[in-house]
Structure formats: C-alpha cells, structure tokens
C-alpha cells in the first residue's frame, strides 16, 4: 500500500525550510513514501497552512510534518487532522499547547537565542554592562520564532524580558532598538543602518538569522565598524557557518532541519506500519533535535562546537 505524507513549512523562500524539505524528500524516497510539500506564502502565513492541512486530509495522507507559522491559530486544523487519523508532528516550532501535536521534533528556539546571548555576554566580559545592542528581528507581525529567539538572547545576555511573548517592551537602556529584516540581507542591512543612525556606538548585534547577519555586516563594513562589533545569529546554515569562519558572525546557534525532517518521516512510516507514535526526549515534552553554538572563539561556561564541526553538521 502506498503511504503518503505531507510536509508543511512556514515559507519556502527561507533556505532553512528548503533544506528541511530536501531532507524529508531524501528520507521519503528511501522509505518509499510519497511526500507532498506545502508552504505558507509569507512569514506568519497561517491561512495557507490550514488549507494545506485540509488538502492532506483530502489526499488521504498518513501523517503531517508541520512547522507552524502561528503556534496557536493552527491548533483547530491540527485537531481536525488528528481526528481524521493522521499523525501530526510539529517540526522546529512547538504548537501552543505543545500537546496539540502528536509529537514535536524541535530545536528549542528560546534556547538557541539564550546560547548566543550567553556567549555574547561572556565574550564581552565587563564591557557587557554598557554594551549597545541592536536587535534585528523578523517581521512587524512578531511571528513566534522571532519572539522566542529574541527573548532567548535577552535572557542569555541578562536583560529583563518584560513580557516574554513579545519583543520591544523591555526597558534596559543597553538595547538601542529593534528593527525588522524579513530575515534577508536586504532587510538586515537597512535595519542595521537605521539603528546605527540612531546610535552609532552599537557594538552587539543580535540577528534573527544568518542572511540578516550578512546584511548587517555590510552596513557595519560600509562605515568601518565591522571589526569592533559582535554579531550573533541563529540557524547554522552552511553559508552562515562559513560566515562564522570568515569572522562576519561571532557565533551562531546551529539547528538541524535535516534531522528533524528525516526523523519526522521515519515516525510517519512507523506510525503507518503499526500505529506507534514517537516518544519525547527524556525530561522534556518534545523530541529535542538539539542546538549547538558554533564558534571558533569559545567562551567560558557556554558549551560550543568548532566551526570545523559546524561545517560537517551544517545544512544548505
């Protein structure tokens, strides 16, 4: 009997999700599963994901791998799929509540942020007390990933979060400001310039992902500030790791989309075969596919892997 499965990503313009799809496709081929892929049209696109889930039900798929754009708004549709007998696995981002999916294979995005926050703080040492921080976020609509990474960074750096469900409400004077980047070079450069115009003494830059970091670097470079500014990021894509090696990015939190995707496909195959559902990592309510800090300048008390290792594990 032919098993089919679905992969629904947030967008398919972000390389992260493109790689996730490639990983899933490779594994599906290996296991003889038909895989259909869907994606939102823009960041935060819940509507298209709902339509995709409905399509999967109509297509008689056995399971769905979902990176939810909106962690709570998608829940009723996920419930509908589970009621129809599909296995739903959240990838990368947990649903709200987390048990709305059968299982979650994820990186802890908050943790990813926290790691680079800690690293930046440790690297700056005493200077951390009067750092000037630029926060380059994803989008004005504050999608969940963006908020988790942003707030995780602040937690790690020792900044009072305010409401952890949104950015921009903290009062710490070290934060110069937030701007949005759409997660690409173009947005990264413009956002960096805007914040530099507000305060030229910025020396720490948090970025939502590595393309945004590359854009921010261009902005710093154009005024000769690229050497004395610390850029941290999240994702761990191969170009990103290469940028860590080149000194563009100080450190990045690496995630493992290929692993998430292939584990997810395996889980669906197992479920289709004899109805077993995957189990969570010990002590957590989700299956943690892990996150590692990649840097060649390890900091005291912050676990990290070298660029060399990062390159082996990187995606895309």
């Amino acid at each position, binding site marked *: 009997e032919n098993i089919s499965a679905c992969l629904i990503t947030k967008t*398919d313009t972000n390389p992260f999700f493109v790689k996730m799809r490639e990983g899933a496709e490779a594994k599906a081929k290996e296991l003889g599963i*038909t895989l*259909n*892929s*869907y*994606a*939102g*049209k*823009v960041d*935060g*696109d*819940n*509507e*298209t994901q*709902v*339509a*995709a889930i*409905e*399509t999967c*039900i*109509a*297509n*008689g798929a056995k399971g769905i791998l979902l990176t939810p*754009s*909106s962690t*709570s*708004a998608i*829940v*009723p*549709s996920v419930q509908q799929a589970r009621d129809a007998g599909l296995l739903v696995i959240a990838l990368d981002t947990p649903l*709200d509540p987390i048990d709305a999916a059968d299982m979650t294979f994820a990186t802890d995005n908050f943790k990813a942020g926290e790691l680079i926050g800690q690293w930046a703080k440790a690297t700056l040492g005493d200077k951390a007390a009067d750092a000037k921080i630029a926060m380059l976020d994803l989008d*004005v*609509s*504050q*999608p969940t990933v963006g908020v988790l990474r942003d707030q995780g960074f602040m937690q790690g750096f020792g900044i009072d979060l305010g409401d952890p*469900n*949104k950015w921009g409400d903290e009062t710490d004077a070290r934060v110069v400001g937030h701007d949005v980047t759409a997660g690409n070079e173009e947005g990264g450069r413009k956002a960096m310039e805007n914040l530099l115009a507000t305060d030229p003494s910025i020396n720490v830059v948090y970025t939502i992902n590595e393309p945004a970091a590359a854009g921010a670097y261009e902005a710093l470079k154009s005024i000769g500030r690229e050497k004395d500014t610390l850029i941290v990021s999240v994702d761990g894509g191969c170009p990103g790791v290469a940028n860590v090696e080149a000194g563009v990015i100080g450190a990045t939190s690496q995630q493992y989309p290929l692993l998430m995707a292939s584990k997810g496909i395996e889980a669906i195959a197992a479920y289709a075969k004899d109805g077993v559902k995957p189990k969570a990592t010990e002590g957590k309510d989700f299956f943690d596919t892990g996150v590692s800090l990649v840097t060649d300048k390890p900091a005291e008390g912050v676990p990290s892997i070298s660029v060399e290792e990062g390159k082996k594990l990187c995606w895309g």
Partner: protein
Amino acid sequence: MVPLIVLLSAVIVFGFVLGSKFFSPFAMTLILQQVQIVGVLAAAQSLVILTAGIDLSVGALAVLCSVIMGQFTFRYGIPPFLAVAAGLAFGTAVGAMNGWLVSRVKLPPFIVTLGMWQIVLAANYLYSANETIRAQDIEEQAPFLQFLGAKFQFGGATFTLGVILMIVLVLVLAYALRSTAWGRHVYAVGDDPEAAGLSGVNVHGTLMSVYMLVGFICGLAGWVMIGRYGSVSPSATTGVIGNIQSITAVVIGGISLFGGRGSILGSFFGALIVGVFELGLRMAGADPQWTYLLIGVLIIGAVTVDQWIRKVTA
C-alpha cells in the same frame, strides 16, 4: 459567462487527473471553505472596482475587525454579540473614511487605500499587541464569535455558515446591482462619474454607500475568519495579501478595472477558479513555488481567453 466556462474546465481537468479523490464531497466542499474569505473580500472588492476604484485595505481591515471582535470580548469583557457588532461598525467606519477621502477630498482610491492598508495593518499589530486569542478559549468563553464556523451536513457534504454567508452575500449583491436603482447608479458612477452626476445620480452618496458597504463586508469577512480558523490572530496573512487575492479573483472574474463593466458573479467564479487551481495543484503534489508560478500563468491566461472569446463572439 467566460469565468464559469474556465471554472468548469478546471474542475473537469483536475477531476480527470486526480480522479475520485478530487470529486469527493470532502474535496468539493473543501474548495468552498477555502475560498470563503477571499470570496467575501472579492465581493467587496467587486463593488469598489465597479465604481472604477480599488481597495487595497480590504484584507487588513478584515483582520483588524476580527481582532476587534476578539479583543472587545476578551479584553473588555463585552458580550460577544456586541463585540461582533462593534467589529462590523468599525469596518463600516473605516470604509466611510476611505469613501470620504475618495469622494470629497477627491484622492485616487489606489492611494487612499494604499495608505489605509498600512495604517490599518499597523494599528492591527499595535492594538492586538500581536497576541493571538486561542481557539480553545473562544470555544469555551465566547462561542458566538465562532458562529460562522458552525457546520452542517447537506447531501453528504459539509457546509459551514461562513460558506452560506458568502453565497448569500454574492447573490444579494448580484440582485442589488442588477435590479435596484442603487445598483444601476454604482455602474453609472464607475462608467463616467461626471455623466452620472449630470444625469441625476448622487455620486457622492453612491460612492459613500459603496465604500461603507465594503467596510461592512470586510467586517463580515473578519467574522468569517474567526469561524474558519477558530482563533483570532492579528498576523493572519489575509492582512498582507488579502487585497491582491481579492483583486485577482475580480479580474479573473472579468470585471474591468476601469469600472462600470462586469458582474459580481464573475468575481465569485474567479475566486473559485483560484481555489480549484490551488487545491488541485496541491493535491497533485505540485511544489508550492510551481503552484505560485502557475497561478500567475492562470491570471494572464484567463484574461487572454476572456479577451479572445469576446473578440470572436463580437
């Protein structure tokens, strides 16, 4: 009726390719459910476009109205019924603002609604503090907000009240445009506003009524959204691409962007055509980017066919 022909051909082609999976009651009613929001917005958009205007703010307004319905209920504890009424009233008020700027200040509709789009979208994020109200909470505490999501069976197929609302709305508007004086005035104003004014139409009144009605329908669309998605989410994509989606439906449906020509039923079929294509391509397993590309081809193709049929049958 060119759009109807295109629609039927699309259904037949996909049915042929996908077989019974596509012709199942589930898939067929699914299309209706998936297009209900765009369908309602396209009905609103049709009205504006018939007056030779365009409304880029429809999607954002629908989202903000749904947020108002949700926040009024949950933040201020207003009874859901009144919160819905407030959402609809707010939509109408924003529509009135658009109408006033277009009709009295005489600004081009494209510009007015481009500005209003940004204002409404930003206000939406700011007012809601980007917080989603969860479906479970709504279900427990204010099920009336999800009223239009109520399902019922009809001949093996599942319909929701939202779908019925869309269909009734389109039929009522089609009737009003065809068979009432107001409808004739909408066409006349879109055709040539100066001539309409000289020949006895209250142009300002007609434009105001259209923009306010459009705002009201956006409010309805917001309510439909809560029914469909269960939750109230300020970051709903409709806010960003609802305008383009509704305009696409309208132009595929054969309404002229220069105003005064076309039928609102066309827009409804236009929305369905896009819905059939998207579902069909998805079910056939097309990659999202390919789907996106093919929708682009569809837009140009549908209008070319329309043009060609008109020429041949002229």
